[in-house]
């Protein structure tokens, strides 16, 4: 009985979103990236659409840090109690909530009435599934040029030892391929996927490619009905992998017209985590003490010349593995500090 109760727990009851450090870092990276959108348009002319859960962490951040004041949360939890909790937890008046799954809500949003560009982050807890392609189509068909669209999916390896899921004792490679085919439809799997063992490394690459193909296919549909100046291109900005409780992959980017191209080519410069290709940026959160964090911060970023040398020698004094130091250096500006408080 007890096990069942746990299984039935809502997503937000299972995980406290605000305490997941990798997610936290990702969110801050997004925040910095979205800030750059002001080169295209006043950030106030953007609407954020996401899945706020009961924590609304991304909503608080984007509203407070960026001043976005049109925010919409799509909330799948549909029973009365969950609805009440979610409404209660809404942190700001400017957040609208639509209850229902994305495949139901996205098609009925009044896209053509909205003058704003959009930042849409569909943070699915699930693996990539066929129905998500329909969400991709809906968003990319409707958002204004200059909008950002991101999706996050679970890329955990499928477990072939799960007797219930694998009653025929398929080998791990066969089983994972079968699961992938069931999830996204066999026709969506690139041929190179047939040879893969579909571990996390493979999943990072193949799932990104499937999403990328779906994005481009949606863009083609959109472009097939409009004149040259209205046609859009897609530039990938995010190809992020991280793990709090499960391995997740985030893929997304910006769509823009020829007119906006020059700005878009330059506006995301010097953001180290931006990835426009298959090379995935992994957010690895080293386990550091506050003392270590302070010591590392003092020598970051790595500066050139004399300072660099000095920095290096300081760095070597900190008793941490070089890998942890490197990982920290790649994300230190977004690293969360958690403290116990009584607000």
């Amino acid at each position, binding site marked *: 009985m007890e096990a069942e109760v746990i299984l039935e727990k809502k997503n937000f009851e299972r995980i406290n979103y605000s305490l997941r450090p990798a997610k936290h870092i990702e969110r801050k990276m997004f925040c910095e990236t979205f800030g750059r959108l002001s080169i295209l348009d006043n950030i106030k002319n953007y609407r954020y659409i996401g899945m706020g859960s009961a924590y609304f962490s991304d909503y608080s951040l984007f509203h407070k840090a960026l001043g976005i004041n049109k925010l919409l949360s799509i909330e799948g939890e549909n029973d009365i109690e969950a609805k009440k909790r979610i409404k209660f937890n809404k942190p700001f008046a400017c957040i609208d909530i639509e209850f*229902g*799954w994305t*495949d*139901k809500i996205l*098609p*009925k*949003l*009044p896209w*053509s*009435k909205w003058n704003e560009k959009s930042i849409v982050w569909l943070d699915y807890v*699930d693996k990539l*599934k*066929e*129905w998500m*392609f*329909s969400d991709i*189509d*809906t968003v990319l*068909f*409707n958002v204004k040029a200059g909008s950002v669209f991101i999706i996050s999916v679970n890329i955990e390896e499928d477990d072939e030892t799960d007797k219930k899921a694998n009653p025929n004792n398929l080998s791990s490679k066969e089983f994972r391929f079968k699961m992938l085919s*069931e*999830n996204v*439809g066999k026709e969506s799997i690139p041929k190179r996927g047939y040879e893969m063992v579909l571990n996390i490394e493979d999943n990072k690459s193949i799932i990104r490619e499937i999403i990328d193909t779906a994005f481009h296919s*949606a863009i*083609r*549909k*959109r472009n*097939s*009905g*409009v*004149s*040259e100046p209205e046609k859009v291109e897609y530039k990938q900005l995010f190809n992020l992998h991280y793990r709090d409780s499960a391995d997740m992959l985030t893929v997304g980017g910006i769509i823009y017209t020829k007119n906006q191209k020059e700005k878009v080519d330059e506006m995301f410069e010097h953001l180290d985590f931006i990835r426009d290709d298959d090379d995935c940026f992994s957010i690895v959160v080293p386990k550091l003490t506050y003392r270590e964090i302070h010591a590392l911060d003092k020598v970051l970023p790595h500066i050139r010349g004399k300072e660099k040398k000095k920095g290096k020698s300081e760095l070597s004094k900190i008793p941490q593995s070089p890998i942890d130091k490197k990982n920290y250096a790649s994300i230190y500006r977004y690293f969360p500090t958690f403290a116990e408080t009584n607000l």
Partner: protein
Amino acid sequence: MAKHKPEGQNEDPNKIVGIPSKALFIDMLVKDLSLKDVIGDLVDNSVDAANKMAAHNKTDLSKFSIRISFDKTHFNITDNCGGIEEEVAREYAFKLGKPKDYSQGKHTIGQFGIGMKRAFFKLGEHIVVESVALNSDFNVTISVKEWRERVNEKDWDFKFDKTPNRKKHSLKDTKLKIDVTQLKNDAKNQFNDSQFLTDLQNEIALEHLFAIKKGLKIYINSEKPLEAPKITLISDRDFKPSYWSHSFPNGLKVEIITGISEDKGDEGGWYIFCNERLILGPDTTEVTGWKGGKSQGGKEGKEMPKYHDQYFRFRGYVFFNADDSSKLPWTTSKTGIDKDSPEYIFTKTQMVLMAKQVKPLMDEIKKERERENPTSERLLNKKVEEATAKSVKEVFTVLQNKKSLPIVYTYPPKLFNPAPKGDTKISFSKPTKEVKKAKEYFGVDNPHDAGSSAFDYFYKNEIGKK
């Protein structure tokens, strides 16, 4: 090595013969077409002619009629829609394929310049065309056998029976009459089949419902003109169809209207019109997005689920319109949409989006009926039934107010009232006096609780004990 010398002295030594053979037109091009398709082509030409003649008042075609009759020995189509002028016949009408400098006029449904000719070849061997136009009249007799077997293979021309008359006729006296005899076997067989007649009548009526609504009379082996089937939507305060329109860079325009109507399986689906001629529909296949897919936690597929009884109420109407009919996304048989045309790919994305706006309503109607939810509790179903009784309207009527239609389909979702999971609702009536006593007995203040308590009491004492 001796140089190969072409036979004709003046011929280009690099020439390779590329002109088609007559057999291509007589035998090949008609293979993929049905008899209904080619008769449809002839009707299209007449409808185009009627629209052209009605130029000033395109909404009134009541002066025009098309009469079709056939049996196992002959086929005839006669209209009074303006005939073919002598010069048009001489240069264009009998030519196989539309010359590139010839325009058939704006907003037509004839496009490819092959409709009449391929109809001849599909139907029979002996054809007589009789035309009375505003400024001329003529007759042309064609023997396909003679045409095919001419010694000079390059002689593709037809001949007027005698020099055409250049004489004025009033519009009401104009006609185009095509008689076909020595029918092909296909035609002989099918023209004898009453099912073929019924199917043809239904098909032409649906394809040309716009023209029929404007007063055009089409008779097919009958003295009673075809009636336009009604295409409908429920439209009232509670259920508002959604409307969307778009202009393509090439001049093609499209409008879509979606919603629900009566629960009829053979009427549900998508209807696609090109220049007011039905090209496809009601369609419930992958072509219009009913693709289906694996159900994944209540969400399924990339587009819409496979069409089944749950979606019988769905109606979607797509109207493509173009002055230049070559911009329309249809196939040459006009029985299908050119699925790969960019304009259709774009439009289909929007069609799926709009169908998905209606889908939750249809899903909820079904869910509300599940788990023995009593009829009185099915509030959304009740509302839909009421609307079906009083608010089913013709699409044309709904479109008159298209400016006021929402961009997103709207219905009253708050009414949705399914039976709770794991529970079954029971409802029954009992004499008021007895209910009052039961309320007192259980110490409750409403009949619902009294009924529920009575069930609990019964269960505890009779079933719970076992």
